[in-house]
């Protein structure tokens, strides 16, 4: 089939009612997941602090894979990312992999920028990005003998970069225990500061 014909066919498919319906479904899924996760994590961030919300977020990856990823079946992550880009919600999605480390980059996220953008409410380095957690869930599902640990995301005005790492269950246990310990220290520090201010 010539390139021209392929383009014509794919363009036709993109305009088909089924494609539009799937695209709309994907867009709604992306908006709903981002809204629900961001809202929850942001409130937890205020309550539990950075280390507390980080612990919740990284542990939450296993819950994500149990529920939301099942309907996606055996779809490849590259295809899922392409479909998500087609919705227009996200642009410039990039997943790089080196050894056990993964770097997920979002060039532009519809929710991020502008006066009303959610990134304005965060530090340049903050709780893991909700969409990165979704991608992390996918990586974890493909590597059942390992555990996926997410680092805080780097927030730019329009996008994010998140590093994730596949760890042995023992390494994962050590890291998450450390996060829990640091969450306690942060909570105590925060309470002390609150008392001083009061």
């Amino acid at each position, binding site marked *: 089939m010539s390139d021209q014909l392929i383009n014509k066919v794919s363009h036709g498919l993109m305009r088909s009612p089924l494609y539009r319906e799937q695209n709309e479904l994907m867009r709604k899924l992306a908006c709903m997941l981002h809204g629900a996760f961001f809202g929850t994590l942001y409130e937890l961030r205020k309550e539990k*602090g950075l280390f507390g919300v980080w612990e919740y977020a990284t542990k939450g990856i296993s819950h994500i894979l149990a529920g939301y990823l099942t309907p996606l079946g055996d779809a490849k992550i590259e295809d899922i990312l392409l479909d998500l880009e087609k919705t227009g919600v996200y642009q410039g999605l990039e997943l790089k992999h080196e050894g056990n480390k993964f770097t997920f980059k979002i060039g532009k996220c519809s929710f991020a920028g502008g006066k009303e953008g959610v990134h304005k409410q965060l530090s340049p380095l903050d709780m893991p990005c909700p969409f990165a957690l979704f991608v992390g869930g996918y990586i974890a599902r493909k590597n059942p003998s390992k555990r996926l640990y997410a*680092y805080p995301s*780097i927030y730019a005005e329009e996008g994010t970069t998140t*590093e994730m790492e596949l760890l042995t269950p023992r390494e994962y246990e050590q890291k998450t225990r*450390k996060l829990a310990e640091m969450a306690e220290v*942060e909570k105590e520090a925060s309470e002390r*500061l609150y008392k001083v201010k009061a």
Partner: protein
Amino acid sequence: MGHINKTKKREDFDSVLLKAVDEGLMILGVSVRITVYHYLKKDHDLRREDIPKNPEALDIGLRTLFGSGASVIERHVLERLCAKLGLIYEEKEDESFIHYIKEARQMTATQSLKPPSQYN
């Protein structure tokens, strides 16, 4: 006299670097900063006041904790450090945090420092 000046300059640079680290960590908030200092002491045997003597341990500690996100904190530290020393911070992809600190230390050793009260 020369020796006294050199020691004074080193002390001045060390205190400016400590202030820059304090301010760099502030992008995460006060309570996170306290927690990070606690972690550095406990897990990397690095007290806050020893950071100028051993910035490598700070780099390792931050990278172990935050992964590549450590570079965000380090960039803020370097921006604050350069602003305080009246140097221009130009980010280069291949240069490490430690390289910049060494360079800033060398540059300030060869020029006269402002009295500590004049640092922003």
